[in-house]
């Protein structure tokens, strides 16, 4: 896939994001959408790249948390611009429920993952960040999804994830559980061998391969 995000577009979005200029950011995203940009391209090469960069700037103390908060909030809102097209497409009879485990506040990545399901014709139901285990179990019980996706960005939430997977495995023995998120860069992948039918996907490519496998 050739990216439609040039260096120039990226720099200008990043600049507006750091300045907290939501209007300017929306205009740029609207323009890209009307140019029929692939949603994956938009998500990875603009949003994710900008947020990873902002994480670095914050880590190196170049920007304050306030600037980071504003940038995250704006980027989250940019996803809304994609929804009218994303949801109106025809859907298969397949569904996934996606959530962040309890105490996990990093929302952007998992919300994007739910959208990738939609993009593949699945119903991608998104529960949000910091989802209490009880709520998750109830929702899975009513929606009866084909896949449950759990997201985790910070490593110290790994225990929460293990606990969640353990309970879900017990309550819904046959359910396909998908885990992902940045925390796995620090370890924890044994979870896929520790429990049956728990799978890990690193990025969109892995994810879409798994989705295709699950359709057959």
């Amino acid at each position, binding site marked *: 896939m050739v990216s439609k995000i040039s260096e120039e577009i990226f720099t200008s979005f990043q600049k507006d994001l750091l300045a907290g200029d939501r209007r300017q950011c929306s205009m740029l995203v609207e323009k890209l959408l009307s140019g029929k940009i692939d949603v994956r391209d938009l998500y990875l090469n603009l949003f994710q790249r900008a947020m990873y960069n902002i994480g670095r700037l914050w880590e190196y103390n170049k920007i304050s948390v306030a600037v980071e*908060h504003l940038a995250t909030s704006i980027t989250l809102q940019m996803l809304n611009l994609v929804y*009218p097209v994303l*949801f109106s497409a025809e859907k298969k009879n397949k569904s996934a429920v996606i959530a962040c485990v309890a105490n996990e506040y990093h929302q952007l990545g998992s919300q994007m993952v739910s959208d990738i399901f939609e993009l593949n014709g699945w119903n991608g139901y998104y529960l949000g960040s910091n989802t209490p285990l009880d709520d998750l179990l109830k929702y899975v019980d009513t929606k009866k999804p084909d896949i449950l996706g759990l997201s985790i960005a910070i490593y110290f939430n790994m225990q929460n994830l293990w606990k969640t997977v353990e309970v879900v495995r017990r309550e819904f023995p046959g359910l396909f559980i998908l885990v992902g998120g940045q925390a796995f860069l620090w370890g924890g992948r044994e979870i896929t061998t520790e429990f049956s039918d728990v799978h890990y996907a690193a990025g969109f490519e892995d994810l879409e391969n798994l989705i295709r496998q699950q359709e057959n």
Partner: protein
Amino acid sequence: MPVDMLDILRKYVFTEASLFLLICSSNGRITDSNPYTKQLLGFDPLNYKINDLFLDFTHVVEPRKIFKEIPEDKLFNIKTFTGLPQSLYFRFFDLGSLFLIVGRSDPREQENMRKEIIELNNNLNSLTRQLHKQNSELAKLNKLKDQFLSMAAHDLRNPSGVILNIAEILKENLSAQLTEEDAYLWDRMQKNALFMSQIINDFLDVSLIQAGQLSLRYSSCSIADLLRDNVRQHQIMAETSGLKLSLELPPENIIISCDISKIEQVLNNLLGNAIEHTEKGGDILVKLTADAEHLTITVRDTGMGISPDKIKEIFDFYSKDRKKLSVKKSSGLGLAISQKIIAAHQGKIWVESVVDKGSTFSFSIPLNK
């Protein structure tokens, strides 16, 4: 503490720290403040009175009353540059001829608030997403419902036509044998079958309109002839109801291009409604006028009228009162269908009405079509 460290701290506290600092004379005039205070207020408070900054003191006329030593944290509200008030924990120090006022925020409150904002923001985004998702699911269901309605109406149209035809043939063949009572029942059966087929046709129209497939077959016609025919057709019905139905035409003959059967459908609807809703002894006037660009047809009755709150949604498909406002034996969709037909002719339809005096329905369509 070594003296020079104290010196540094003193300087730092006054120039850099996130502390709200004011120095006032004993009459309440501000004589000095630090940069943090100026930023938070959005202006330099020099020479202002402290009543101007503290929301809690706006009614205090005698500053001496405020200026007591406050040795422990006390909450007061100040104005800020955002226009929203902010609560800070204050202490007042009496220095004889001067007062030192120090305010600070509680870091726990601030951090809790920040966490709450992040959580709220996340929730807002997941909820917005859910809303979009559900909206599209509802739109798909709605489409399915439209398709179902259209299929049902389509499938019912032929059998209902067959029933009507056979009933007519049998009536002719059997008319000699039927008793008066049988003939009456036969008549009611035919009327109801006709009513049913009209409802089916309305449903079909609605489903075509909803699918954006209402297409017009234009041909040219004399609008006066069309009106004469239509009024004549309704004359018997009007007379049976004890109504006077009249037609007023301009001297010139106007030829327009329109879908004749669709315009007839609109006229049938307006006249049918007028006859239904006008009491015995009333008048119904159909009138044609034209200017250089438009022709306008009005149907005026002296009936019960429509109340203003119902008028707003009278041309809506989903109007709650559509049943009450239309002919008893109909789907109640007539006005909504008429509105779409007129809109398809690039025209408009409207109503003026006074309760207990009557209603005037009008529509106009452009002449150069």
